[in-house]
């Protein structure tokens, strides 16, 4: 068993675990935070697949921009739910 494979297996496990936690998260806030973590793990996975271009894009777009969009939406929706009629 090489070090690379062990790392891959660990990464795969973490990836699945974070995805599961994301989807099963009790609150939207946790889901979004966990999704950002998931996105960063995806970037790692891309790097392991020798795809640095995708890793970059995933980190910037998949985790970064999507995460920001989700967070912002979350903030708005929560503010509405709190202060709305």
């Amino acid at each position: 068993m090489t070090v690379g494979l062990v790392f891959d297996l660990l990464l795969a496990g973490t990836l699945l675990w974070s995805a599961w936690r994301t989807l099963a998260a009790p609150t939207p806030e946790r889901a979004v935070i966990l999704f950002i973590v998931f996105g960063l793990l995806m970037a790692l996975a891309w790097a392991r697949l020798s795809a640095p271009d995708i890793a970059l894009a995933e980190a910037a777009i998949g985790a970064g921009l999507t995460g920001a969009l989700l967070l912002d939406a979350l903030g708005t929706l929560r503010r509405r739910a709190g202060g709305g009629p």
Partner: protein
Amino acid sequence: MSTGMLFALVGALLFTMGAAGVALPGAPLRRIVAFNVMGSGALLVLVGLAQRGGGVDPVPQAMVLTGIVVAVAATALALALARRLGAPGARAASGDDD
């Protein structure tokens, strides 16, 4: 098992989980997150499977770049809809066509 195959399998599972999350009723925000998980899974299968022999294949990598951008576009549109839907004024929004 090669790295490619391993991540292809992970991708398959991610797709399944995400698709189930989209198909199930729930808050729009969660379904949007689930859609992103699903998309990531499909893209992972694309590259992982192509590279299961160990080499590097730039063609699916380029496709995945396209896929990521498409996913963020769809996410933004979905969020725009979800936010307007959640807006207090949505039920009596002006500018209706009916």
